[in-house]
């Protein structure tokens, strides 16, 4: 798991959130986890396939998810319904898609799978034995979004 795969996700997340939320997120300190698992109430899971493959999980609290969805929809979210969940999933899709554009500039060709939402903490995802790097992003008046990046180059995966 290389740090250079993570930077595009942090950069894309900042760009996408600036546009969607009209606020500039602040990057927190990068940390590592031995395995990928959900740590937040709301987690958007995006699969990455191609030259680099694995999973990226965008985790946040329910309060943060409500605030983001309200801003994206343009109306307050009273219950975290299908539309709110879809907005949060789409945020993950947009960040992942924009990250792949940055990765393609480095020569990596990848694709993404439609996002899935997992509700609840400590769900372990064991299909991939790749450690995760975590970047926290703090958005003023909205909360914290944790990006868990667990990716490896295809030839490393095949060798494993």
């Amino acid at each position, binding site marked *: 798991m290389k740090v250079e795969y993570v930077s595009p996700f942090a950069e894309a997340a900042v760009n996408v959130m600036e546009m969607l939320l009209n606020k500039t997120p602040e990057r927190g300190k990068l940390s590592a986890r031995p395995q990928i698992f959900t740590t937040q109430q709301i987690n958007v899971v995006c699969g990455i396939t191609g030259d680099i493959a694995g999973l990226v999980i965008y985790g946040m609290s329910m309060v943060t998810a409500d605030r983001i969805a309200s801003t994206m929809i343009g109306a307050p979210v009273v219950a975290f319904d*299908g*539309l709110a969940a879809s907005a949060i999933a789409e945020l993950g*899709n*947009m960040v992942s898609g924009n990250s792949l554009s940055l990765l393609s500039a480095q020569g990596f*060709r990848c694709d993404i799978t439609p996002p899935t939402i997992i509700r609840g903490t400590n769900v372990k995802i064991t299909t991939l034995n790749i450690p995760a790097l975590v970047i926290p992003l703090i958005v003023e008046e909205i909360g914290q979004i944790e990006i868990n990046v667990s990716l490896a180059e295809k030839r490393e995966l095949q060798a494993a």
Partner: protein
Amino acid sequence: MAKRILITDDALFMRVTLKNILTQNGYEVVGEASNGVESVALYKSLKPDLVTMDITMPEMDGIAALKEIKAHDPAANVVMCTAMGQKNMVVEAIQAGAKDFIVKPFQPDRVLEAVQKLLAA
């Protein structure tokens, strides 16, 4: 008569957002598809003036759906509307006959500009 548009996106949020932008500006949204298979079927039955097409979707992705729609109607106005903005993806879509390529997230004006340009006639 209002120009008729078919929206294709697996995300309910995106379908609602696009529908609001288009209907508030005088277009009629005649159908909403949540994957490529639905989009191709609705294109054939509704014969819309324009289709917005996401790429990353379950069942059939937007590139495959674009190709099927263009095979059925070579004059179809298909505008890609996706988070996948890599150059190879844009080139593949344009070569397959897409008339424009909008990368998400977008400003409403970007969508209107693309639609107005294609449906001006």
